[in-house]
């Protein structure tokens, strides 16, 4: 039997739960077919979410899943240009014609889909993004020039969390696009995902007792994001997320972290997301999305 998992036509953090629900129990017992034929658009969060699923199955020694590529030539070209198919080919058996990636990515991509396996990769990611971040964040989104550095700091800390906490590798992608429905403005989005142990298991040995029966994926996210705790005993730990929150507060940004069966977000006034969503379909590891909106004209 092959289980078919449909990729939502509009695949982002909102429709991610629909994608996660398609897997049923983890690790899936059957052969999987990830069906992206009807995909019309995918955010960086969606793209690296698919890679995370493929990675988790590979690490669980599951059968190599199939992935049918989108029918839309435009969508296929875009996914190729951001490097998705290059990495997907290592994790999935691809079905359908995949266009060759052009030498340069689209101008709204700050960082292609990039694996994060070690601290050295964090250096590379920060170096790479510094070339274009100022032009896009200052020029297009109207953020102050020094916000570019704070954006890169947020990126660096998010990627380090993979290396330090996940117990495996992960993925990052950064893109600028328009939030038509929610905001009606351009946004810069950092998406980071890993197939690792997740927040609950990472923090369990040091913090579960304090929460008692409340302990679970939601409580673990709350401990990390709201209370700034870390699994390390070093009292200086946990400041990366605190620093990211400060940056987001200043620029009316949003952070949302999904791990296991819960998602916790710090929700700015322009969004209507739930601060905490629990009892979601399980998905391995942790998925982080940081969203920085273009500044309104009068605020510039």
């Amino acid at each position: 039997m092959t289980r078919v998992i449909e990729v939502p036509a509009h695949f982002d953090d909102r429709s991610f739960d629909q994608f996660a629900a398609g897997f049923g129990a983890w690790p899936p017992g059957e052969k999987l077919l990830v069906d992206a034929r009807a995909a019309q658009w995918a955010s960086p969060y969606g793209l690296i979410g698919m890679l995370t699923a493929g990675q988790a199955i590979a690490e669980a020694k599951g059968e190599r899943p199939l992935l049918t590529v989108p029918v839309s030539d435009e969508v296929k070209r875009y996914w190729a240009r951001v490097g998705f198919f290059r990495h997907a080919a290592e994790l999935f058996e691809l079905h359908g014609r995949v266009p060759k990636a052009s030498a340069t990515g689209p101008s709204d991509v700050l960082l292609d889909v990039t694996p994060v396996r070690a601290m050295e990769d964090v250096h590379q990611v920060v170096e790479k993004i510094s070339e274009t971040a100022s032009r896009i964040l200052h020029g297009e989104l109207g953020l102050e020039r020094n916000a570019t550095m704070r954006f890169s700091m947020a990126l660096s800390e998010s990627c380090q969390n993979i290396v330090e906490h996940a117990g495996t590798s992960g993925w990052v992608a950064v893109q600028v696009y328009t939030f038509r429905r929610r905001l009606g403005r351009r946004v810069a989005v950092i998406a980071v995902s890993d197939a690792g142990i997740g927040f609950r298991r990472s923090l369990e040995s040091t913090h579960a007792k304090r929460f008692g029966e409340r302990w679970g994926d939601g409580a673990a996210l709350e401990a990390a994001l709201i209370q700034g705790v870390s699994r390390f005993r070093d009292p200086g730990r946990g400041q990366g997320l605190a620093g990211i929150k400060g940056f987001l507060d200043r620029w009316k940004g949003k952070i949302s972290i999904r791990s296991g069966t819960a998602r916790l977000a710090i929700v700015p006034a322009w969004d209507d997301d739930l601060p905490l969503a629990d009892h979601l379909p399980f998905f391995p590891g942790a998925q982080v999305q940081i969203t920085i909106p273009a500044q309104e004209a009068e605020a510039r």
Partner: protein
Amino acid sequence: MIETIRIGHLLRETALSPYRNLVTRPTGAAVRTRIEDTLSRSDCLTALLDFSDIELLDFSCAEEIVAKLLLAQATGRPRFVVLRGLRDDQHDAIEQVLTHHRLAVAAMVAGSGPVLLGWVPPDARAAFDCVCRLGRACAHDLAAELDWPEPRASAALEALTLHRLVRPDGDLRYHLLVA
């Protein structure tokens, strides 16, 4: 005597690459080790850490380099530490990690006087500005300058001394970069 340490130079030596971004904890720890090595061979009482070659300083590196260097002062041979060449975003990162630990450090800002990053009691912050303006001060000077009772001025100077933000010499407290 002041030992000036160019952090960008140490970073390039440590990472064996042309990076100008101070990111990740292992990198920060490696740079801190190099700073400590340099200081262990120096007779200077004051270390001036120059960040002017650095593009990005993330929170992890701010913690590993600045906070842990100051925390180590409590156990090793104590030094006075002053920072130079920081940009706004780097100020913010250092301010956050030092406040978390209730530590503080003096930073030289181009075009203005020294600023204090991190946490000290409010009176100590006012006293720091005053000592920097005067170059040196005793409790009596500070009390006169700020219109405080002398015990209050004395307590504020004591707090600055404990945080190693002024150099004591008898009753006087000197701004760290005054010879």
